């Protein structure tokens, strides 16, 4: 194809997206669109399955049977969501194994929040409330994104996730209304998870490299800063309702903006964790790598068995 032809295809392509038409797997798409989508969707998928680990850490120690089954179901959903997203990514011509390879070698990123440790039961509440809360804000707009398989996966993810945040907030509520020890546990978790949760929306708009392109392709509807503000504004009243305090001395309601002003985010910490120096980066990655490596003989066995059965069937037919 000549450069001119590509140029005109690209124009048609961008017009289709502008008209809110969906792009489907076999449609022509610019290479950059494919690459960007592989990167974002796989990052999203990796975040789901790495995200299973910090919460999985408390499944066996959940304090009641009701909490145990709820947490187990939630972590299982995350496996499901990872699966939906890997499948969406595979429609772009890359296999799940290649995507795993990228994760395991550190080439691919996942949400940095999961590189923080879950030290107490209250962390399970804080993750559900704050981390899932932030994730929902990021994810809901993606139900209308331009790439069909991604949008469809997100519709399913958002529908299933509706219980996750409630599950977390209910844990916090119960702790906040409990003994002084329990309340302190809840406050401690909020203290540790608050700032990393704000970082989940990514660098400030001034620093963000992908925003303009992502807006055009409907991978984003609002900027990082807008989403972060939305999260803060909706979360503060939830904290107040259960008598917990957000660890930000600069936090103040701004009557003029009808929004909260908040203190500076420690972006050095953010980049440090992104670059691999968070408290649990190594641990999380090696847990994934181990699960994959330890499972190899199992996956191989299933393939070998399937082939033998197929052979038997063929022989019978002959």
């Amino acid at each position: 194809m000549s450069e001119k032809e590509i140029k005109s295809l690209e124009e048609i392509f961008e017009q289709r997206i502008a008209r809110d038409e969906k792009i489907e797997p076999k449609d022509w798409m610019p290479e950059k669109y494919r690459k960007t989508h592989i990167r974002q969707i796989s990052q999203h998928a990796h975040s789901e399955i790495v995200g299973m680990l910090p919460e999985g850490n408390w499944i066996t120690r959940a304090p009641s049977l009701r909490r145990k089954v709820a947490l187990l179901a939630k972590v299982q959903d995350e496996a499901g969501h990872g699966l939906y997203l890997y499948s969406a990514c595979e429609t772009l011509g890359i296999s799940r194994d290649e995507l795993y390879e990228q994760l395991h070698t550190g080439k691919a990123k996942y949400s940095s929040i999961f590189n923080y440790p879950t030290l107490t039961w209250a962390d399970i509440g804080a993750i559900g409330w704050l981390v899932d809360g932030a994730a929902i804000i990021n994810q809901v707009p993606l139900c209308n994104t331009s790439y069909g398989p991604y949008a469809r996966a997100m519709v399913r993810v958002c529908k299933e996730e509706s219980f996750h945040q409630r599950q977390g907030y209910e844990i916090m509520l119960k702790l906040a209304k409990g003994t002084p020890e329990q309340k302190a546990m809840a406050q401690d978790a909020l203290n540790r998870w608050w700032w990393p949760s704000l970082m989940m929306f990514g660098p400030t708009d001034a620093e963000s490299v992908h925003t303009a392109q992502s807006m055009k392709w409907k991978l984003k509807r609002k900027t990082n800063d807008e989403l972060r503000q939305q999260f803060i504004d909706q979360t503060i009243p939830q904290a107040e309702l259960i008598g917990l305090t957000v660890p930000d001395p600069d936090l103040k309601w701004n009557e003029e903006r009808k929004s909260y002003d908040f203190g500076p985010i420690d972006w050095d910490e953010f980049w440090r964790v992104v670059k691999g120096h968070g408290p649990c980066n190594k641990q999380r990655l090696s847990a994934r790598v181990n699960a994959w490596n330890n499972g190899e003989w199992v996956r191989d066995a299933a393939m070998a068995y399937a082939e033998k059965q197929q052979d038997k069937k063929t022989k019978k037919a002959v």
Partner: protein
Amino acid sequence: MNKENLIQYIYSIADNSLILGQRMSELCGHGPSLETDIACTNMALDLLGQTRSYYQYVATLLGEGKTEDDVAYLRTEREYKNVLLVEQPNTHFGYVIARQFFYDTFHLLLLEKLQFSTDETLAAIAKKGIKEVSYHKRFSSDWIKRLGDGTAESHQKIQEAITDLWAYTGELFDMLPEDQEAVEAGIGVDVTTLKEKYQEQIKNVLDEATLSVPELQWFQRGGKQGIHSEHMGFLLADLQYMQRTYPNMKW
């Protein structure tokens, strides 16, 4: 039959679901593939769901405001009546599957009889459980075949697990005095009558999987009397951690 013995009888069934559910839930996030991970978690959820039904029943029998969590979390090791089989660790996926297969096969035979119990609550729990456990058995049997008749490595690994864990299956058919009493009251199941069918079903699947049934001189027992293996203390330390560290709190 008296209440205390009925409760002991329920423990001897329910604790198996709790402990196996607990073991299975350890796997969540660490399975050999995403799909298998999700499947194993489903089984854990079924088992824990059954556990809750049994324990809620025990709590009403105990009265005095007892809850399912008191029953699940606040007994000493000796007071858990699960068989040794279900507390054995997830050494590798072969052990997970072999343990599940040995228990599922027994579990289904048990529930098929328990659904006719004169105790209506137990009968109802069994009836619901049959559907879940039928699927578990199908899942674990399929995997026994895949691993047994898969690669040379998988064959060796699953045979190792089968051989090791087989020693814990004899106990499934032991009858304690309260079991006997439950049978006489029409509430319980005479597990000795399940043994022949059990061994036949196990053998059929193992044959198809090109695996051999171990020949054993001695079967391990004790769990049903509360004498557990060394693994049990660690499992309970995990399970009970919160309730023991922060007593008398609501979660």
